[in-house]
């Protein structure tokens, strides 16, 4: 088999191997289902509860994407501002580092006090946790313009806005689209955290309910669903990245 074929089948083979080893280990060591359900138990739970899983997944997907879209808007705006102006950079960067260091799980109770239990805390948690990588990446892309390029344009009488539009923003796009892959998975973490703590629906909420009923296979089924959603969204972002900034992924001429 060629290396190419191996690369294509490797992710599927590894995933299959993981589940096979898991299934075998559970059977071999006779692990009780409330400690670690076998993949077959999880699959059975997924089939049995497909309707609530589906409804709650849609809910989680909705809050995640809403927060993620806010992140894109806020992260782009803030990243451009920070990359544009060194004073803004100096002023806001330490604040953002500090803010990013706060565990977002600690903010959920505050959000619930402000907005009550429901979609909004989940959306905001997804936003708060995922906007930082976008800001940093966009700002990095802009602030690393080659000084020669800037000199060439400034000598022609280019204003800061010209340099941003012609060079800064286009060159920050690969950084931006690259950061979306990180941001979307973080947004999932944010909305599920919020749902676990305070929500009436969503995958996180469903997990808490299943746990309280000692329905361990359903808890695990929810985790698997989250993993699948995360992979799908990541792949979507990676696809968008290649489509939008193909020029940055081309290698030198052969």
């Amino acid at each position: 088999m060629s290396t190419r074929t191996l690369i294509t089948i490797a992710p599927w083979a590894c995933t299959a191997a993981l589940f096979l080893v898991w299934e075998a280990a559970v059977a071999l060591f006779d692990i009780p289902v409330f400690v670690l359900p076998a993949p077959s138990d999880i699959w059975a739970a997924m089939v049995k509860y497909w309707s609530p899983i589906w409804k709650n997944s849609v809910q989680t997907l909705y809050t995640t994407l809403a927060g993620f879209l806010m992140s894109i808007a806020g992260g782009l705006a803030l990243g451009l501002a920070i990359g544009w102006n060194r004073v803004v950079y100096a002023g806001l960067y330490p604040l953002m580092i500090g803010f990013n260091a706060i565990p977002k799980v600690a903010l959920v109770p505050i959000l619930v006090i402000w907005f009550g239990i429901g979609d909004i805390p989940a959306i905001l948690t997804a936003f708060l946790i995922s906007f930082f990588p976008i800001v940093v990446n966009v700002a990095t892309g802009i602030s690393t313009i080659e000084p020669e390029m800037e000199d060439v344009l400034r000598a022609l009488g280019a204003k800061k806005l010209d340099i941003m539009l012609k060079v800064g923003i286009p060159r920050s796009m690969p950084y931006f689209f690259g950061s979306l892959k990180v941001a979307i998975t973080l947004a999932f973490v944010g909305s599920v955290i919020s749902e676990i703590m305070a929500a009436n629906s969503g995958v996180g909420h469903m997990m808490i309910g299943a746990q309280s009923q000692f329905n361990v296979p359903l808890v695990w089924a929810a985790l698997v669903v989250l993993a699948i959603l995360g992979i799908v969204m990541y792949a979507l972002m990676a696809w968008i990245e290649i489509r939008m900034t193909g020029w940055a992924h081309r290698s030198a001429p052969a």
Partner: protein
Amino acid sequence: MTGFVDLRNVRLTYGGTADGTLALDGLDINVKKGEFAAVVGPSGCGKSTLMKLATGLITPQEGTVEVAEKEVSGPVSIAGMAFQNPSMLPWRTTLANVMLPLEIVQPHRSKLRREKASYVARAEDLLKLVGLAGFGEKYPWQLSGGMQQRANLCRALIHDPALLMLDEPFGALDAFTREELWQVMRNLHAEKGFTVILVTHDLREAVYLADKVFVMSARPGRIIKEREVTFERPRPIELTYENAFNDIVHELRGLIADARAAA
């Protein structure tokens, strides 16, 4: 008589006048219209600072800088610049890269949309002149280093600047490509008649291309010698292997060795 580029008694300190680095002190340079001037000197003598002064990117603390008989107080859009790093934008085709200055400099900026076809023709003519005919639609990463540098020259010249400032544009190329580009540069200068200031470490390059070579001292930089080079134009590349040529190169080399020793 005042020249086209005229720096008089220029003093420039980086990082504050009191305790900063004195880059240039008492620098005088006079380049006539249409002349090809080269500036050579030991490393760190402030050659690149000179580029920024003449294009108005920085202003000196003392002395005057005049370009085209006007005192320079801000960016002079009559200049084109090219550096050692071709700095092509990877998301633009070569043609779009070459045409970038037209999107900045007036009056082209406002006319570009309406007269797109004629500007594209102009860019293609220029690409042809440097031997890049038919490469306009290629992306920079599809071009070799020498080709990118040719495109870089085109970008510096697309808005018909009266002054071309070159900062070691051929420094990173292999010897053969460099000689090829010397001839490209020679032809461009002969055809367009702009004024050139070429900053370089390569003395053979300076003597081959320039009408006048300025030798700078070590930091703080000033001119210690102004050497006319009077070989007839157009100069064949074989000239660089003749004795008269090598004598001048030797002479300049001696001056720079002294300047380095003095530092």
